[in-house]
């Protein structure tokens, strides 16, 4: 019983992490209908920035996290303004090719700069180990992830639902043409959201170094996970991707624990079945129109 609860807890932490990593992609796909396979590269960038700051320069972990966000967001906005912007109107094939190219470049570049082995971020002692609550093992680090990601999720939901920017964004996702007809600067909204999504991915990358493992092949290894979150969750709200992330996280952890031999088999089967059953995603409208 306790092992079930521990697994559930780990699964939730994993799912929350996936949500922070992937929710930027949901906006890219939903708003601009742009297939961005390079999303993981931004996460990797954030992770490596955090690693360099903490391990090499001796920054405290919690001070490095915001910087991981800022650096990934900066890279995001630069690339969006210089490169991505030209490809919104292109075919999906072009977008796929372009972002695969970017991914390959990022993988080789990080490999060149930092080496190909897995890196670890030195965590403060307060985050290490675990404690028991009624016999259920709770990892301190995972608890922190749940708290941070939970707060972020609530914050995002508030911004989307309550602020003026949120309503602009929702309008633009619903119908970009009508939104721009009403005077909403859709490209600007999108550029800002894109950068923010990349920043979140960078933050997620920094947080995930401990759990998912951070090496130059991160963008390729987890690409499918991000895509699953978005396609299964849909992009009409952030609730869809959030629930999909939790489902994926819990499913993956449970799958690895109870049927370790089947490995990632469980996840892929789940994804294909869901996509066949509901090609438009489990929750609400799909990203692709």
């Amino acid at each position, binding site marked *: 019983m306790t092992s079930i609860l521990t697994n559930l807890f780990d699964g939730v932490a994993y799912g929350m992490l996936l949500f922070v990593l992937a929710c930027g992609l949901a906006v890219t*796909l939903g708003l601009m209908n742009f*297939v961005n396979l390079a999303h993981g590269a931004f996460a990797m960038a954030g992770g490596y920035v955090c690693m360099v700051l903490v391990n090499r320069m001796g920054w405290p972990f919690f001070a490095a996290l915001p910087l991981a966000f800022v650096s990934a967001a900066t890279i995001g906005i630069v690339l969006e303004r210089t*490169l991505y912007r*030209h*490809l919104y109107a*292109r*075919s*999906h*094939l*072009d977008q*796929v*090719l*372009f972002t*695969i*190219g*970017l*991914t*390959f*470049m*990022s*993988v*080789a*570049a990080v*490999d*060149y700069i930092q080496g190909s082995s897995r890196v670890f971020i030195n965590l403060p002692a307060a985050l290490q180990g675990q404690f028991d609550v009624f016999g259920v093992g709770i990892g301190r680090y995972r608890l922190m992830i749940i708290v941070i990601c939970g707060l972020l999720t609530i914050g995002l939901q508030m911004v989307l639902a309550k602020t003026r920017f949120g309503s602009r964004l929702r309008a633009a996702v619903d119908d970009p043409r009508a939104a721009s007809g009403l005077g909403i600067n859709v490209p600007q909204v999108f550029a800002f959201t894109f950068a923010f999504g990349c920043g979140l991915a960078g933050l997620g990358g920094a947080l995930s170094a401990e759990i998912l493992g951070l090496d130059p092949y991160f963008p*390729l290894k987890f*690409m*499918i996970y991000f*895509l*699953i979150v978005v*396609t299964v969750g849909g992009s009409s709200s952030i609730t869809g991707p959030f629930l999909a992330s939790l489902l994926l996280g819990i499913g993956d952890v449970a799958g690895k624990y109870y049927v370790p*031999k*089947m*490995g*990632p*088999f469980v996840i*892929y*089967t789940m*994804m*294909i079945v869901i*996509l*066949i059953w509901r*090609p*438009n995603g489990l929750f609400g409208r*799909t*990203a*692709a*129109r």
Partner: protein
Amino acid sequence: MSASSDVGYHAQRQARWHYGEAAFWLIVLACGFVFPSRYLIMTDILRLALFAMSLDLLLGYAGIVSLGHAAFFGVGAYAAGLLALHGIVNEPVLALVVAGLVAMVLGFATSFLVIRGVDLTRLMVTLGIALLLEALAERFSNVTGGTDGLQGIEMQPIFGEIPFDMFGKTGFFYSLAVLLVLFLFARRVVHSPFGLSLRAIKNNPLRAAATGIPVNRRLIAIYTLAAFYAGIAGALFTQTTAIASLDVFAFERSADLMLVLVIGGTGYLYGGLIGAVLFRMLQELFSTITPQYWQFWIGLVLVVIVLVGRQRLHRWMLYVPNLVIKQIAGRKAVVAIPESDA
């Protein structure tokens, strides 16, 4: 001339053999005699060309974007490997066909999943199928050899007459023969009414359906055929290298394949062949400059190709040949690529 006979006339003209095509194949054959020390890399190019041709059938003619074409390559590779290893089908050509058929069955079974939904769902499903098969191959390591791959495959002589030699000479001509046969078949297919209907579907599925083309059935058919081709390419891989390992399913293989096709151009069958040659040459060039980081340059090539625009790039590349043809033949150039955006 009525409109319908006009279409038929153009289709027939397109389908006719050009001197350029014969010259192309003669050059390929000549390469086999001119560079006897390079059989291994040339065989590799032929395999890649066949694999790219398979994707071209899907992407260039039917407009299906697949990110998991390595699935069929891998199934073909393992099928051929297992057939040879356990001595089930000893004769290579027969084993090749059987391996192709195995991939074809898988292609037929999965085609129903792929034709549903839009581009994005297709991307996900094709990618998912390839990853699923990779996970399966890893799981059943007692059959597939796991991460070590299938080892100790010994190929029997072709038709029981021609043995495989260690320099890869047999392998090269064997691959070339297979490629040529399959190319001729693909050429026949894409110029048939069936092929024309595929192009109609690619341009506008809704309109194609309105003119009475059974869209889904055509897509299933071409997907199955492409799976067969990819399976044959995979089987050739196993037969000529005597190894099959987990990386036959790798995502990189599918992604590289896209690049091959994009370099060569889609929708005219030769794209895959030319792309395979250029891709391997690029890869060689990059790995001599930076052995470990050639992927960076490959990525850069992809990004540049997309940013410049594929059509524009092909116009530039064909500028000189077209000029020459214009001067010599005094007529409109024939080397034009009918490329509409996929």
